[in-house]
């Protein structure tokens, strides 16, 4: 690597000019990115707000041609809540405990380093591939599409994200807290449960909720596990409705009224994610 910063008047002018141009390009690129992303979000917010209505939360879908068409998304909102709830039952404990292990127990051990690496890699596995796992493990044995398989796929996606988020949040707790607790004679478990976790409660909860919200926004893992349904159900043994699959079907379908339903519903998801991002920022800012 050669660095030639030697100076002649002409060369200096050229270099300063080049530098100025590149500076402008960097600023321009950033502005361009923000502009594109603002266009995307702005568009979704504007059409979403226009189509938002109460029926979305209170009614089930009504087919075209029937009175009250297009109805609402109540079945899908309940469906997503149940799916995410079921997957949280498995995903949250495993994810949280793994996060605690990575942050609090031998953080650099022969187990922790590969676990951290695998968790990162798992977080990058395409969600459509995870759907096949759910299909093979729970749809094939049961013989039909069902909510359990959808929850399994979601839990699989949730665990690595929750684990790494929890680890990051616990690491923000100053180590003097742990030292103080241990100096006072607390056991390891007591230190973690009584001192470290309470000190990080806010950030862990919001971080984990953000992870859960991102899972709630997943569509691909549900396509051929829970499949989706136009009917209200709370029985996970049946094909199970979810907000995202419903949005996908409506948005790609032919009916304008259903498209506006999809727009309103996607805005709901975006808004949820925005709020959670905001609160994560609030909690992590105090510590950095």
């Amino acid at each position, binding site marked *: 690597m050669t660095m030639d*910063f030697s100076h002649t008047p002409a060369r200096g002018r050229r270099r300063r000019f080049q530098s100025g141009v590149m500076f402008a390009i960097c600023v321009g690129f950033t502005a361009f990115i923000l502009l594109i992303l603002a266009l995307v979000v702005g568009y979704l917010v504007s059409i979403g707000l226009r189509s938002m209505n109460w029926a979305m939360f209170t009614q089930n879908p009504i087919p075209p041609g029937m009175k009250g068409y297009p109805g609402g998304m109540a079945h899908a909102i309940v469906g997503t809540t149940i799916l995410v709830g079921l997957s949280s039952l498995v995903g949250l404990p495993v994810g949280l405990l793994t996060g605690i292990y990575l942050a609090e127990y031998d953080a650099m051990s022969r187990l922790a380093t590969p676990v951290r690496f695998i968790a990162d890699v798992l977080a990058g596995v*395409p969600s459509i591939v995870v759907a096949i796992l759910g299909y093979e493990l729970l749809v094939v044995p049961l013989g039909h599409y069902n909510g359990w398989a959808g929850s399994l796929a979601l839990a699989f996606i949730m665990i690595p994200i929750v684990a790494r988020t929890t680890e990051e949040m616990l690491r923000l707790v100053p180590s003097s807290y742990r030292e103080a607790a241990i100096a006072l004679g607390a056991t390891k478990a007591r230190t973690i449960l009584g001192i470290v976790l309470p000190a990080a409660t806010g950030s862990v909860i919001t971080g984990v909720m953000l992870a859960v919200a991102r899972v709630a926004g997943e569509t691909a893992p549900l396509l051929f596990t829970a499949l989706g349904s136009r009917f209200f159900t709370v029985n996970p043994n049946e094909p199970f409705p979810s907000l995202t699959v419903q949005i996908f079907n409506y948005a790609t379908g032919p009916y304008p009224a259903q498209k506006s339903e999809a727009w309103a519903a996607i805005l709901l998801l975006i808004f949820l994610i925005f709020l959670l991002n905001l609160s994560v920022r609030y909690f992590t800012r105090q510590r950095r």
Partner: protein
Amino acid sequence: MSSSGKRLLQANEDQVDAAKSVANSEAGAVRLRQGGFNGDFVLSYAARASAIIVLLMLAVLMIVLFHSALPSIKLFGWRFLVTSDWRPNELDRPIVGADGKPVLDEDGAVQIETVPPSFGALPVIFGTIVSSSIALVCAVPLSFGAALFLVRIAPRALVGPVSFMIEFLAAVPSLAYGIWGLFVLCPFLQGHLEPLLKQVFSHIPGLSWMFYQRLESGRWVPIALTGRDMLAGGLVLGIMILPIITAVSRDVLRAVPRTQLEATVALGATWWESCVEMLKYSRSGLFGAVMLGLARAAGETMAVTMVIGNNSQIKASIFAAAQSMSSLLANEFAEATTDEHRAALIEVALILLIMSLAFNVVARSLVVGKTARSAAGH
């Protein structure tokens, strides 16, 4: 000290007080030493067990996929990767004789032959590679520019909000980008950009082929510009991977030692020249950031499915409808009726998994330790 800092200290003291009072009480002292019902033991093993579950998850995923794809792997072998005919259903077609005319039976009716289904993954592998490449070409320069902006230019007051925007956009569901692509980008491409490009490029010799496609009969016909094509898929993917590449390369650049920067400036480097040294210094981390973007682009499903046009044939033009591995799975898996079809789809998923694992492993090993703050969760 800021009020939040004070609050934190206060909380700290409260907790230490709490810990003290627990330790001081006699029962508490016993509890602390013995850990009640031996909570220490329980928590430690529960945490370790969970960590091991995470390790096993990847193994289970690989084994299940491999097992289910095995019939297809056995049946098609290597041909699966290099043949370009994806036809899940039987095809009835007239038998063509040596003279190029349909063969007739005694009654004068055209004889029909039935061609068995055929599964070749090349079109979707091609679709994934091309759409991800378009995405990278669009996103990488923009993201690096924005990362340099955040690290070297932006005033402190701006770094927070811009970083927040970028992190928020990384978390927006891909369905949202798909809807935007479907209702805004595709109509724009169809109505404005593509006709314009066609007007300009179809008169340049050597480029007009981009607007024509070859039919099975060998005839060349103009491609109907629908806006739902490879280009749309690539552009939507590009927009979706902007946040992640920007965020990771920002962290990588931020970790360049200050002395490195000061040294170049002391030698008389201009702003840009010192930036170049910075980029060179962190090139492996930046490569990791690009690989992370690539991994995400290759595995992204919903947005691509909505805009790429879903046609499982290889077309040279980016203005033709295409299909990526993930969109093929999204479109066909739930409707697959034969075991053969399903196994073939699972083999596609296995290829996708291996590809994305490779990208991720390379990326993570390059990025880990190169950033001030880990890039997890993006």
